[in-house]
């Protein structure tokens, strides 16, 4: 099964991956690592309960959107 009940490590993975990718984009300079980290962690918390396999992608999408609306 690829979906349910996140083991801890993959939770953190989705956060780490999203932070790394977003920092590499303009949000690294526009918002700064502290803010990006906070937004990603929030997104991860909000998306709790989503299938683990989809988490990295979903967390990144939601965080990017939230960053986008806050800097623009």
């Amino acid at each position, binding site marked *: 099964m690829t979906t349910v009940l996140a083991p801890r490590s993959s939770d953190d993975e989705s956060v780490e991956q999203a932070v790394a990718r977003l920092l590499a984009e303009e949000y690294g300079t526009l918002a700064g690592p502290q803010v990006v980290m906070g937004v990603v962690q929030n997104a991860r918390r909000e998306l709790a*309960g989503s299938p683990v396999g989809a988490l990295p992608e979903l967390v990144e999408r939601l965080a990017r959107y939230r960053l986008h609306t806050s800097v623009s």
Partner: protein
Amino acid sequence: MGYVDVAGVRFTLPDGRVLLEDVSFRVGDGACAALVGENGAGKTTLLRIISGDLTPDGGSVARTGGLGVMRQFIGSVRDDTTVQRFLIDLAPPAVREAWDAVEAAELAMMEGDDEPAQMAYANALGHWGDVGGYDVEVTWDTVTVAALGVPYDGCKYRELASLSGGEQKRLALECLLRGPDQVLLLDEPDNYLDVPGKRWLEERLIESRKTVLFVSHDRELLARVADRVVTVEGGGAWVHGGDFASYPAARTARHERMAELRKRWDEEHQRLVDLVRTMQQQAKNSPDMAARYHAMQTRLAKYEAAGPPPDRPPDQHVAMRLRGGRTGVRVLVAEQLELTGLMKPFDLEVDYGDRVAVLGSNGAGKSHFLRLLAGQDVAHTGGWRLGARVVPGFFAQTHAHPEWLDRSLVDLLWHGEPGRPGVDRGRAMATLRRYGLAPQGDQLFRSLSGGQQARFQVLLLELSGATLLLLDEPTDNLDVLSAESLEEALGAFDGTVVAVTHDRWFARTFDRFLVFGAGGQVYEAPEPVFDEARVQRTR
């Protein structure tokens, strides 16, 4: 936290039949209760009474905690509802009203942009903020990203009808499970969900602290999630306090007990009748006996007035029959067929007698594939053709039939349609009886329950003389016994079957498995594959 308390509810159908006689049960704080019963037993009706859509003829419903409701036909929405409207309709009443006020004020401003209109708009926005509207919009982002992969702004004007059935369900479930309502009524939430989606739903229901009353016919879901089972049957409802594993035995025991009580009542009744008769004879000769005779008569009258205990509900009978007929050996050939924007090109050959299950995640394009084979307009490149004497018969619950809605079943059968000869009333009723639909013969199609509509569509397939059955999620909505009957009918069917299904149990009765994969490739697998990831598309 919340509970639902249903007490002595009685409900009469428009045609005068009593559907619910005396329904009482309670779903306590944090419980996850399954509501089961055969198609047409009154499950949806009961949920609509609890949610306040319908007013019962008697009895009462008490509940605490905000109420979130998901209806059975979500998944087959085919009107012009947008994602935005859909989410608003699922929101608590205060939010809904505030939203409608904002919309009305916006409209008024467009018509005349004067000061009162601007003031009204500002007020409406203020109220939207007061009821937590802005927080709700933030939640909607989470909900649409989780369900569709895009934030709310990117999809709010999208028509719900453009989402697959599973996506529609998923959107509603994300919204209700993440929302503030503490009591959820879910009418067949698992229909249309792909297998990973069903597993996801199982986990979410198990870990949720909300009070949930859900209808389902999926035995795997019932077994994993329900901590009690409410059964609607014979016009009443009873609660099994355990899980689904122990449910069948509990139900059998209950039925036996009912039959036993009824038998005892009948025996006692007979004894009293006999006594009265004997005493009547004796009373002719003795005034003393006459007094006793009258006392006995009163006793019998009282006994009869109290009435017999309810008998055990009758066993359900559904016997579907699908005939088919011999066709050319090669039934379907697809060469480099590509569903534009959905799947990569693939080849496929299907032979007479094959049983092909089409599997894959929600939104992969399986239904489009079936619709194409059924002769509908679906964008594609590459070629496909059907073999000699192949007559396709298409079944899809998401297939809207507006022209059926206001006609009765007997009428629809009487008139027939191209490819399906009409039948007289006698034959129509006989066929309806086999599908457990005889009492519905003169009802309008629109008033049928979800499962009754599904059964009727199988019945039309039976009459159509199709030799290639194209079935899109045929077991959704069907109660357990009807699904089994369909399986049997397919087993005996002389012809070829191609079926899209997410029903793990049903899929295992097929012999070929065509998988619509996550990467857009279509391939054949030797065994059912249930965990293909969702296709990631930029929408």
